[in-house]
């Protein structure tokens, strides 16, 4: 891993890395690496370094506690956190259709089962907004606007506040009118319009969440508005503890202290009903499609050096290809990444010097940053 200078965490241009690797390896024109092979090695090297960040992070926390890491510019942990946080994603989890999975491994077969995203490396936290202020169906829409219009509501009396979370909970195809918002499309309340008719029936959102592409229409998309000041974390509980927890009077999961267990890439959330806290929820309220959100660290995208045509027998770099992808690690990692790729390349071309060069560079780098 490179020195810890993470200014703005510029991602690493893949063409630059490839040129450097070829310059090192391509001795006497027999060290040529095909784009396909380069992409494989690049992905391997990036993953290796990516994983190393988490071990480094732990290592530096231990060293910080031993007072061998400082603050300010000497705060190594902060720099590592910044890199890891560039892979942080927040997204609603897809609720599993109970009828399609009648018996999930945890034994829950209700609506409290959600699917984790396919690109997660580690789930940092799950959370939800336990206080739903109001939910309903839009009665009309205005093309290109950020309005939420529901003529059956007076949002002034529902306690909706500026900053509250607005979610388009429509599932595409489920709404009577073709819904444009994918489930989970979200923004926040900017204000409740005084001028609307009937009074308080229109909210201005932060973005166009309920937009009819045809330019105005009958609405029909479902929405929910949540109190943005009350966010609770859904805590991970191990399979060996979950039934002790649910059986305990003092610690059983409640809407304010929910928890989940993991089965494969499914999570089962407890409690399965959310009564009590959520006025205007009714007793025995069930989980909804946009009830659980995850903050997770995703895998880095696989780097892709793309090309178009051959000039002089050489593939010409093409940064406009659909599958083009730079490295996602910060620029400061370039020397270490090149050293790592060189080790793979050296093996391919059976060139021990290239392997040794890569290993030497890596060892030096480790020595410098330890």
């Amino acid at each position, binding site marked *: 891993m490179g020195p810890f200078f993470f200014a703005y965490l510029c991602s690493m241009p893949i063409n630059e890395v490839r040129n450097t690797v070829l310059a090192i390896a391509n001795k006497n024109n027999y060290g040529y690496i095909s784009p396909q092979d380069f992409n494989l090695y690049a992905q391997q090297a990036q993953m290796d370094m990516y994983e190393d960040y988490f071990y480094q992070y732990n290592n530096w926390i231990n060293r910080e506690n031993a007072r061998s890491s400082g603050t300010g510019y000497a705060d190594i942990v902060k720099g590592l956190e910044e890199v890891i946080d560039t892979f942080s994603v927040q997204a609603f989890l897809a609720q599993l259709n109970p009828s399609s999975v009648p018996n999930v491994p945890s034994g829950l077969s209700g609506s409290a089962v959600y699917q984790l995203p396919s690109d997660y490396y580690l789930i940092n936290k799950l959370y939800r907004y336990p206080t739903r202020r109001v939910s309903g169906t839009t009665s009309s829409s205005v093309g290109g606007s950020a309005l939420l219009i529901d003529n059956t509501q007076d949002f002034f009396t529902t306690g909706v506040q500026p900053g509250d979370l607005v979610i388009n909970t429509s599932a595409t195809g489920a709404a009577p009118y073709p819904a444009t918002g994918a489930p989970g499309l979200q923004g926040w309340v900017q204000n409740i319009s005084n001028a609307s008719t009937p009074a308080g029936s229109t909210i201005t959102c932060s973005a166009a969440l309920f937009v009819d592409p045809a330019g105005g229409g009958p609405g029909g998309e479902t929405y929910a508005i949540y109190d943005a000041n009350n966010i609770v974390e859904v805590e991970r509980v191990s399979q060996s503890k979950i039934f002790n927890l649910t059986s305990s*009077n003092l610690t059983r999961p409640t809407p304010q202290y929910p928890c989940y267990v993991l089965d494969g890439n499914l999570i089962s959330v407890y409690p399965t009903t959310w009564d009590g806290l959520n006025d205007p929820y009714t007793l025995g309220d069930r989980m909804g499609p946009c009830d659980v959100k995850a903050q997770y660290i995703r895998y880095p995208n696989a780097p892709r050096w793309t090309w178009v045509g051959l000039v002089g027998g050489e593939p010409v770099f093409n940064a406009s290809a659909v599958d083009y992808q730079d490295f996602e690690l910060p620029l400061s990692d370039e020397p270490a990444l090149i050293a790592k790729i060189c080790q793979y390349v050296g093996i391919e071309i059976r060139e021990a010097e290239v392997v040794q060069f890569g290993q030497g560079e890596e060892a030096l780098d480790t020595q410098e940053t330890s």
Partner: protein
Amino acid sequence: MSYITDYQYYENNQTSPTDENWGSYQYISLDDIVNNFLLMYQGNNELINNINRYQVLFFAKRAIQELNYDAMKEVKILQLQVNDQLRFVLPPDYVNWVRISLYQNGVLRPLTENIQTNWSGAYLQDNQYRILFDAYGDVLKPESSQLDIDRILGQNRSIYLNAGSPYDGAMGYLYEGAWFFDFQVGGRFGLNTETANSNPTFNINKSAGVINFSSGMASSSVVLEYVSDGMEKGNDSKVSVNKLFEDYIYAAIKYSILNNRLSAQEYIINRARKDKSSLLRTQS
């Protein structure tokens, strides 16, 4: 921005119940305690790390319970009428009683506990005094024991104290508010101080969850002052503790966690224990 606006405090934003927030500033909620602990006392650079929230929640609740038992003077008061069986059903969050009073003619008359039991379970027996069982091998029980029946019917004797009466100090029966006496033959030995009182007495059947009163209490109004465990019958959102105890609660959670940690050094545990006990003394 203040925690709560004056309008919210006095009127609860016109949401029912409007008195919800009165006096609330004295207390810190369980949510705040758990949140603050995780924020301030747990982390990579703190004494405690890698702890589950439910562990903090558990120890926080245990600390609040212990406070309620030992130190806090948070007394709850409930007034109910005694039923025909001379019973007062204990409230759901009852842990121990402080005082039980008869409310009569606008006056609270504290009652004394009769340590001589005035209630009992019973088994059915045949004329050979053998216990009777049902087909499943379980013992058959009557609805009330003879002791209960006598108490309910006012057939238990107790001493009558009234200096102006010729029956002062005599053993008699209090039935429906009136005293009846046997002929006084022979001597009386000792004085039962629990019942040597013109007021009715009571005895608590903890497992049955009732207070059994002496006769004459049917339909009387009784005021029970009791302590709870502060768990608000399991409604976490209502659990709170006076701010004067806030530091003690954190110290108690910290000690409980460290005390259960495999790798915590003894001096750290001792420091946490001293923190906890000194804060309990200074804050209670």
